[in-house]
């Protein structure tokens, strides 16, 4: 069975003074944050604030600047200009203190193939100055948490993709972080493995850990994030709560109809809001029945699908349909 309360014990060790420090200010503050590689501007003067205890998402196509932003927060990539503080500390002057409070799940798996599952966590704990006596119990607890206890003596190469992601999550928790950075936490995983990771993220949030994540998966963002931003070309296009973004930019429902001149004429007559996506017309509405009735009665159409509007509709509307490399 899942042990949802795992790590609670570990988190009790966090001193109250440490909690207080975090409570008075936002966890991350970015103002006009910029990252430039020669001519290319990867992050173009973005500003955002992450509050304690929330799950904050970065959505965007490939190359939008999400991972670059994560790397600046992690203090591994220096910013070009602007302000960036984590727990009130400047990323340029106090990287060591910040990194002590962070847990990181990178986009690319970087588990140590020279070691077993258990050894990976043990070796990683040394980098955080964890006393060996505490660490052994903690590793057992973390392996239970991510359901890898029975694999603890296996080499990394014998783990499935989902197991590797879970082990990386456990590794990110070895220093009882106050802020967890997840860069595409479920990339390339099957649905079962994704659900398991989502459960873990929710239970960590329930323990008061602040989570910042990037994802391409809209359902993942809608499910997990309290607030999110959509980025493209290094800029933040919108920010807000997932539901609010959907109703603000799309409405409550979507009717997809066949794209032909008659339908377009019909929709224009009705004064409906719509976009054309290839051979489909996407109608944004709060009253799907009326739109369907009108299309069926007035235009005699065959294929119509009605569904609830999702974050993906917002995403595609804002970032366009052009393929990104």
């Amino acid at each position: 069975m899942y042990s949802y309360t795992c790590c609670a014990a570990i988190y009790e060790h966090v001193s109250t003074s440490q909690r207080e420090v975090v409570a008075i200010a936002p966890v991350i503050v970015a103002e006009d944050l910029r990252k430039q590689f020669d001519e290319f501007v990867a992050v173009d003067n973005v500003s955002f604030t992450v509050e304690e205890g929330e799950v904050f998402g970065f959505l965007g196509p490939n190359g939008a600047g999400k991972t670059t932003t994560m790397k600046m927060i992690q203090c591994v990539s220096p910013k070009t200009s602007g302000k960036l503080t984590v727990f009130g500390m400047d990323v340029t002057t106090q990287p060591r203190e910040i990194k002590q409070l962070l847990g990181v799940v990178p986009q690319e798996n970087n588990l140590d193939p020279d070691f077993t599952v258990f050894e990976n966590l043990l070796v990683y704990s040394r980098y955080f100055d964890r006393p060996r006596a505490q660490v052994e119990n903690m590793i057992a607890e973390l392996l239970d948490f991510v359901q890898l206890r029975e694999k603890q003596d296996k080499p990394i190469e014998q783990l499935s993709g989902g197991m590797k992601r879970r082990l990386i999550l456990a590794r990110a928790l070895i220093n009882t972080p106050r802020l967890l950075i997840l860069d595409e936490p479920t990339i390339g995983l099957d649905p079962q493995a994704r659900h398991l990771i989502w459960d873990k993220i929710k239970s960590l949030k329930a323990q008061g850990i602040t989570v910042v994540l990037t994802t391409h998966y809209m359902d993942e963002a809608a499910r997990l994030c309290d607030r999110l931003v959509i980025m493209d070309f290094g800029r933040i296009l919108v920010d807000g709560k997932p539901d609010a973004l959907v109703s603000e930019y799309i409405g409550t429902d979507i009717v997809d109809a066949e794209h032909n001149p008659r339908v377009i004429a019909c929709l224009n007559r009705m004064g409906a809001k719509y976009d054309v996506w290839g051979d489909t017309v996407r109608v944004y509405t709060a009253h799907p029945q009326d739109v369907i009735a009108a299309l069926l009665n007035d235009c005699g159409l065959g294929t119509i699908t009605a569904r609830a509007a999702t974050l993906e509709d917002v995403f595609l509307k804002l970032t366009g349909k052009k393929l990104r490399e």
Partner: protein
Amino acid sequence: MSRGYFTVPKLSSRVWKVWSRNRSVFMKTWRVNFFPPFVEPLLYLFALGFGLGRYIELIEGMSYPRFIAPALIAISIMNSAFFECTYGSYVRMYYQKTFDAIIATPLSIEEVITGELLWGATRSLIYATIMLPVIAAFGLIELPDSLLIIPFAFLAGFLFAAIGMCFTAITPNINALNYPAFLFITPMFLFSGTFFPLELLPQPLQYFALAALPLTHVVGITRSLTLAEPSGFFVLHLVWICVVSLVLFVLAVNLMRRRLIV
């Protein structure tokens, strides 16, 4: 942020955490790791020392095996640190992303690279330590003077680790590491006073070897120690090794930083 090639890195005792990561890996496969330094001197001694060496009466007043014994140790010091910090470090950096994983923790890239260099130096120390009794069993080295080679192996190993790390920092890919291996390490192996006295080289080449082939200085010291005959150049060799190690250490760390921190 502009950093020069010779910015002095800020380091802490955390460098030893990287060192102990590599030691843990080494000890997991200790059998296979302890094998080469045990076998290598035997192969060279039989082929060159007792084989080819039969045709050599005396070289600088000593038997040929006795002449090459300190060179074999010096070569092993060179190879173990150089290859650890080229191919070994490159695999950890590029393929395993080990450095990326470590710099997400309170360690800095400067500390990671320094830890790698210290580990390379330690490997040289381990190899020299294993070779000494093997060679001593043939009565080719003077004891206890030769025992000083053990601490010296760490220093000389650090030099070759730093040289290797500089190449690792600038190599476009792992195959290109063959260039320094064949154009620098192999000539050094042959022309540093290893298998024949440096004095046999034309004078300009002797100066070149002293200026640009670090192994020349390392062999100079190991030979003084195995023969228990400190030469007048002993201190000069030592100073050369210390100064060049320090300069290349700082350079290696800065080059690696430029490569990895963007």
